[in-house]
């Protein structure tokens, strides 16, 4: 199977039953992506596929050949943290750190959804030209990522700050995605 992972072309032989999550963790050593339930209920395995957030535990790896996959290992650049990673550290957006890679990838995918004006269940005006980003919108849109340590407040603070600092033209996408674009 062939994939582009964090900007690098990867070729690997794997069981066709492998989920994208198990392929990443067990076959390719990208252990930053976490398994918390293996059934799409916790969000710990969230990765970006062509910029869209998905639960990699629900994705058969074989279906994602040729796609561009970004994991937590691909968010920063040249050893520097992505601004959202830095904000998570500053706002204590985690305790144990296990759900964190999924939270980060999910937040970056979410920022793109907002940029594309995708509404959520709490969006009041579905016809508005742009989604008004407030705390309720962010909390709703991040509710697929469980955090049992309860770092939810810090996660929202980190995302809010990063979104505010990122201009509309520059979403907090990963560096190599920006480079590609």
């Amino acid at each position, binding site marked *: 199977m062939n994939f582009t992972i964090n900007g690098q072309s990867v070729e690997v032989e794997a*069981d066709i*039953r*492998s989920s994208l999550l*198990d392929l990443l*963790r*067990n076959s390719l*050593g*990208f*252990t*930053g*992506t*976490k*398994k*918390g*339930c*293996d*059934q*799409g*209920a*916790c969000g*710990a395995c969230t990765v970006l596929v062509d910029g869209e957030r998905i639960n990699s535990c629900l994705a058969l790896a074989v279906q994602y050949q040729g796609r561009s996959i970004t*994991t*937590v*290992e691909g968010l*920063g650049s040249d050893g520097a*943290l992505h601004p959202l*990673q*830095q904000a*998570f*550290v*500053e706002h*204590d957006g*985690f*305790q*144990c*750190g*296990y*759900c*964190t*890679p999924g939270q*980060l990838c999910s937040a970056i995918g979410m920022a793109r959804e907002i940029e594309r004006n995708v509404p959520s269940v709490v969006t009041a005006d579905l016809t508005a030209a742009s989604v008004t980003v407030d*705390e309720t919108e*962010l*909390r*709703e849109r*991040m*509710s*697929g*990522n*469980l*955090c*049992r*340590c*309860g*770092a*939810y*407040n*810090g*996660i*929202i603070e980190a995302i809010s700050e990063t979104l505010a600092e990122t201009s509309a033209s520059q979403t907090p996408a990963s560096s190599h995605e920006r480079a590609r674009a």
Partner: protein
Amino acid sequence: MSMQSESANTRPGRWQPAVTQDPMLHKHGALGQPVSRIDGPLKVQGKARFAAEFPYDGLCYAALAFSTIARGRITALDTTAAEAAPGVVLVMTHRNAPRMKAPSLMMSSPTAAGASDLPVMQDDEIHWNGQPIAVVLAETQEQADHAASLVRADYAPLPAVTSFDEAKKSPRQLDNLLGQPPVVEIGDAEAALKAAAVQVDQIYRTPRHNHNAIELHAATVAWTGDELRVHDASQLLDLTAGQLADIFGLESDKVRVSSPFVGGGFGGKCLWDHQILACAAARLAGRPVRIMLSREGVFRIVGGRTLTEQRVALGASADGNLDALIHTGIAAMTTHNSCPEQFTFPARHLYAAKSIRLAQEVADMDMLANTFMRAPGESVGTFALECAIDELADKLGLDPIELRRRIEPETDPTSGKPFSSRHLIDAYEKGAERFGWDRRSPTPRQRRDGEWLIGMGCATATYPYHRFPGGAARIRLTAGGQVTVSTAVHDMGMGTATAQAQHIAARLGVPLNQVSFEYGDTTLPRGVIAGGSTQTASIGGAVIAATEVFVEELLKLAGNDSPLAGLSLAEVETRDGGIGHRDDAARFESYESILRRSGRDELVCEADAPPPAEMEAFSMHSYGAQFCEVRVSEITGEVRVSRFLGSFDAGRILNAKTATSQFKGGIIMGIGLALTEETNFDPRSGRIVNASLADYHVPVQMDVPAIEILYTDIPDPQAPMGARGIGEIGITGVGAAVANAVYNATGKRIRDLPITLDKLM
């Protein structure tokens, strides 16, 4: 290297628990600062390596098959299809598993770590629905999972007690409740209750819960000859190593367990069957093994909090003094574990009453061993007690905070011991002011926003201080001035490494960036467990002792040519990267200078913590006041927590940032306890039926408002660093604060957790 003896402990300048204070009590430095987590950058980059993420050549993957009956015998076990499946290395069952000793129950000996003392896969007996009956090892996880699904078992079932209603008909009295008497009686509480002017007498029920840390339980294990290496997700490293050595008949130094990162614990990341089975299967296969439980597997073989049925009866005079305080009840347990869910503990020290009766029993069931989960006892005990206090305040026509002010005791009401430090009312007052408690109407159903009824509630949080003996710490100072402190403790996200680095920097008077804290590996000096909010104080005790040895060694090395010449431990303090006379700023020599002059590259000192005498002399507890505002839909019965504030009195706070997070995390787990969490146990089959995160509802982002945290930050004079421990207290009182707010909103008392929609319709 030096170990403390009793006589050394009473030498001038040494900390004598219950007699003298930790000298740190009056120092600050880096202590308390909101330092970001030291391991934060690793975690946000996905570089923190968890138990299932250690590579080995020839690694094989494990999967388990589970029993489908609660009690009986396996009469046939067909593994042929599993063994023939592609990639399978072996199938292990009771027929071919290595012979192993059974674990011993935690706290039954210094190395016991067993959550249950049942033998693990040694015979055909089934003790609970979900017990592992086979381990499959295969080249990939997919192959192992598939093969495990092919294992077929037949059973001869035996009658099983799987209904709590049946089990509680034959209650069992325990000899002791975690070392405390199971029954406490002061006066004739039942008679006083009957005679009291105002009475509350209610039954409260709390369900089973599961920890559900997001990291699945996992271990990577490898044998080299008779040496066993275990990469675990553990909150009791040294106990696990000692217990595994015992199970496999090894010398304890042949087992090394490490766990630098743990993806959440909450009491659940202890020694369960999966680590033992992985070690056994690895030995059988002669290959390293990785086991990572499925989420269902976690529910099947890792116990959770048990269910309780509690009676709280309060008799009061019209002016709000307690004539009678009764808290009794029963919790489900098994005959092969020792976790009684000590829900009567809060009533032992919280309130003054003329007569008291506290008693709890257990109901034995055929089920997976229940275990400690965040604030075992106090989390659910405060639900019952603090709801009853609210009901009493309502009957008395008193504000619930005013009632608590009137029943605030001067000394511990059941032990008679002095409190080491207690500022509960202070916490209430600060919290009430900040939360706007004065806007609460004492009459229910007075605030409304469309379909939403709005109410406020409060409740007391409490958790005991404990310091475990048996921990040691090692201090290494290099000629370059770097300090490393080492002890085999744990950081499951509590911020141990960060707070301890701050502690050590402040204690030794060195900059934070010159301090390293080593933990998470049994090759380090023996550490204490991470449980019961004890680890910080326990590490503190060991570091105090090691620091005393360190200073004495440096004074010896300094010799007669130093400004410190002739000074003893009692006369000096650590400051500015060296040692100085307490009262004479001129008499000072830096660590580097002392090492340089004595021709040393480094100094290494190690010591054991002194015994926790302070716990014998004082009643030591953390306290808090939990404030909640809820919105309850009159149409659907849906409850939303709209505001929450926790005001804590937990001693000195070591790191404002990580402590705030830990308090919030406890409160959020408490919101789950109040509103959504319940492990559903089928009373017909004894099987847990919601064994997934889709069906067991932990709080998600949308369930959690911005939570505000206050704390008194008053150092406890009897505790190392003045810090009492903060891991559990956040969850305590939350269930009652939510339930009391629901009452204030709706006029309905819900005494049966969780407060789901149906109960409010």
